[in-house]
């Protein structure tokens, strides 16, 4: 997989993968004039010391992942003398935090965490011409090899209407050449490869973004090398914008549908089988409580289906406890999805078997096949959910290895108003496996190529459907 040439800059600007994920999910403006504001030296020292001390005293591992944390302080603190602006301070802090080589450590700029305008998107002030995003282009862009490819344009969506087809390669966004930022893998230090893998994928996925009603000019080429210049106007996801503590406002949206017979047929499933197969599909972009009602409703709707696909691709995580609540839709026993351990104790991610429907009826948790889709942008709570159910034998995971960023964390305010997100616990799966740096390895791995994307539009979903059809057939034969 390629990396971005500008990774060091991205790491500074995005304040590690934490802020990268937030940047992707937040509806807040991505930059602010505040970033270049002068920071008083005393405040810079105070903020630096706050970050260092918090991590020193609350990192779940007293050895700080084997990093000499005192030496790190001695190395970076003198550099405060040359810090003049908020952005420079954030860059220095992020560099220091980056020495840990772990996920869930990052600085979230104050203007992202607490924008004046909660709706953020188009109306918020920005001093650059970069879009604040938050709109739906009707297509997913993913890094495949060295290319950023369009994946599964939604039929009738903005990208589809603009003529974009699956497998087309993104070349330019608003006149900016996105390919020039690629560089080889070997330039990346191994110890933080999981973080950089995530950041690189996240950056690729967010090259083309737009606020609702905003038009973005894209140049792509198809698999024959023909260039296409298109303008795509984003629509609203129609989700709910929520604010939780110190985190930026986040838009939450849930998608639910029944896989149609033509879609099953498109996956290569014979018509006779496709006619008999009933598969539900559920996707949500983040694990926030605002998604819970939609998730509950979707499970109710598909409760009698033979299979349900839970698509966690691109889902960066959220409230860890939600994995316990949603997990209970699929387990009829109070198993644990894993265990988090901090310096002060440990807690289990015990599921709550869901025996009552959203409208108050007595039900059983979903008993059909459960297939979970993951990709390199599935992180944290998504990994806890997928990895836990996988190890409990309840779910089959399909797709690409997830982010490997699964450390429970909190977000605290710093003296300068920025937010420090820091991991306070380690997490292991039911069998004691760490997901941090490793990720959830799919039972059914799917390697994306330009050819497979061009041919199948969404090869991961297609593979999941083929697995379900195959497994159904096997079970029917097995039952006699």
């Amino acid at each position, binding site marked *: 997989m390629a990396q971005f040439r500008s990774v060091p800059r991205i790491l500074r600007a995005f304040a590690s993968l934490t802020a990268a994920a937030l940047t992707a999910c937040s509806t807040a403006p991505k930059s602010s004039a505040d970033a270049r504001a002068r920071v008083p030296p005393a405040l810079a020292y105070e903020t630096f010391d706050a970050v260092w001390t918090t991590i020193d005293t609350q990192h779940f591992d007293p050895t700080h992942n084997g990093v000499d944390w005192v030496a790190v302080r001695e190395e970076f603190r003198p550099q405060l003398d040359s810090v003049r602006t908020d952005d420079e301070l954030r860059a220095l802090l992020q560099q220091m935090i980056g020495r840990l080589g772990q*996920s869930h450590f990052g600085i979230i700029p104050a203007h992202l965490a607490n924008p004046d305008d909660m709706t953020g998107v188009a109306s918020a002030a920005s001093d650059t011409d970069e879009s604040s995003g938050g709109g739906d282009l009707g297509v997913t862009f993913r890094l495949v090899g060295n290319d950023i490819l369009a994946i599964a344009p939604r039929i009738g969506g903005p990208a589809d209407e603009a003529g974009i087809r699956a497998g087309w390669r993104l070349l330019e966004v608003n006149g900016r050449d996105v390919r020039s930022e690629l560089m080889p893998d070997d330039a990346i230090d191994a110890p933080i490869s999981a973080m950089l893998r995530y950041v690189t994928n996240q950056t690729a996925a967010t090259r083309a973004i737009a606020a609702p009603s905003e038009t973005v000019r894209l140049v792509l080429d198809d698999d024959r090398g023909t260039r296409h210049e298109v303008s795509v106007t984003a629509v609203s996801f129609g989700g709910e914008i929520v604010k939780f503590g110190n985190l930026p406002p986040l838009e939450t949206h849930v998608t639910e549908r029944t896989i149609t017979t033509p879609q099953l047929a498109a996956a290569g499933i014979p018509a006779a089988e496709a006619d008999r197969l009933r598969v539900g599909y559920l996707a949500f972009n983040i694990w926030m409580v605002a998604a819970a009602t939609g998730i509950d409703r979707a499970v109710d709707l598909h409760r009698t289906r033979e299979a349900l696909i839970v698509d966690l691709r691109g889902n960066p995580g959220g409230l860890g406890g939600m994995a316990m609540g949603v997990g209970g839709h699929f387990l009829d026993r109070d198993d644990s999805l894993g265990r988090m351990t901090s310096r002060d104790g440990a807690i289990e991610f015990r599921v709550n078997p869901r025996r009552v429907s959203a409208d108050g009826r007595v039900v059983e948790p979903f008993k059909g096949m459960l297939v979970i889709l993951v990709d390199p942008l599935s992180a944290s*709570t998504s990994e806890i959910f997928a990895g836990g159910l996988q190890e409990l034998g309840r779910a089959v995971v399909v797709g690409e290895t997830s982010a490997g960023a699964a450390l429970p964390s909190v977000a605290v305010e710093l003296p300068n108003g920025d937010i420090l997100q820091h991991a306070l616990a380690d997490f292991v799966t039911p069998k004691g496996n760490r997901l941090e740096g490793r990720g959830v390895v799919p039972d059914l791995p799917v390697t994306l190529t330009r050819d497979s994307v061009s041919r199948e539009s969404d090869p991961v979903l297609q593979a999941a459907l083929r697995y379900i059809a195959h497994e159904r057939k096997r079970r029917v034969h097995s039952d006699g």
Partner: protein
Amino acid sequence: MMLCRPFTTAVILPLVAAIAIGHGAAAQSATATPLATPPAQTPSPPAAPATMPDAPLPTAEELFAKQAAACGGDEAFAKIESMTSKATMKMPATNLNGTIVSHFAVAPAHGKDAGNVAGNGRFVVLMNLPGIGDVRTGFDGTVGWSTDKVLGPRLLEGKELEQIKTDSDFRRELSLHKKFDSATVAALTTWAEKPAYEVRLKGQSGDPQREMTVYLDQATSLLIGMKMLAQTPSGAVPIETTVSEYRAYEGPAGKIMLPAKTTLVWLGQKQILEVEEVDFDPIDPTVFELPEAIKALVKARDSAPPKPEAPANPAKAPADTPSPTKTNIP
């Protein structure tokens, strides 16, 4: 918040569920350690105990008798049949602020003189937290329950149910030594920089989760600290409680003292509860009725066949099921 009790475990249940936040998505507070900022502040030394450390310690009975008197006396509490309190909850480090409304009442079957018995009361605690929504926890004398959008509706069972039964005795802290097999005054020490008697309470079974250490202010005799294991959906969580402020209220039978500001610390999280209003008016019985989802769960539980000793796992694939990686997917 509830008579002499600084808190009920109901106030941390949903927060434990929300603690493990995702990848750049949500947060709970961490205890904001005082930061090493120049100039460093020198903490003031703890106040010295008023008596010499080797002076004879009072007995637990003596200490709890003084505590009861300091709170207003057993008689004043015995006349209380119901109480409603409104409080705020803050997790300052992470800017998470919510409200808590608690309703407590002695269950009708037990009568007004039935205090100090676990399970003799009923209560409902309603929390509202931005980003989480409403979280309701209750006990109606029989059924312990909780419902929120993070975990969904739940019937509390096992140790959680035992704990909520204990919580329903809202006069419990007045005679703590009677609720445990042993109560030992371990030392005159300090708690929250105040000289305080440390009293260790141990339960019958030797179960460490039935142990509790409390700290009684040497000067006022009021309970100012507790260490215990709180039962949560995710297991037992060590929790430390500090009551930094009491307030006097006019109860049905005289003045009583109730905790007004309480700080809880668990898994490095700090949670501050501040009571704003308390009244002792009768509570509409419908307040304690089970939510519809909980009624459905009770119905499902009561109609379910007895559980086998080793429950089968219907969802788990049989041992001979080939793993997907070994399956020849068409």
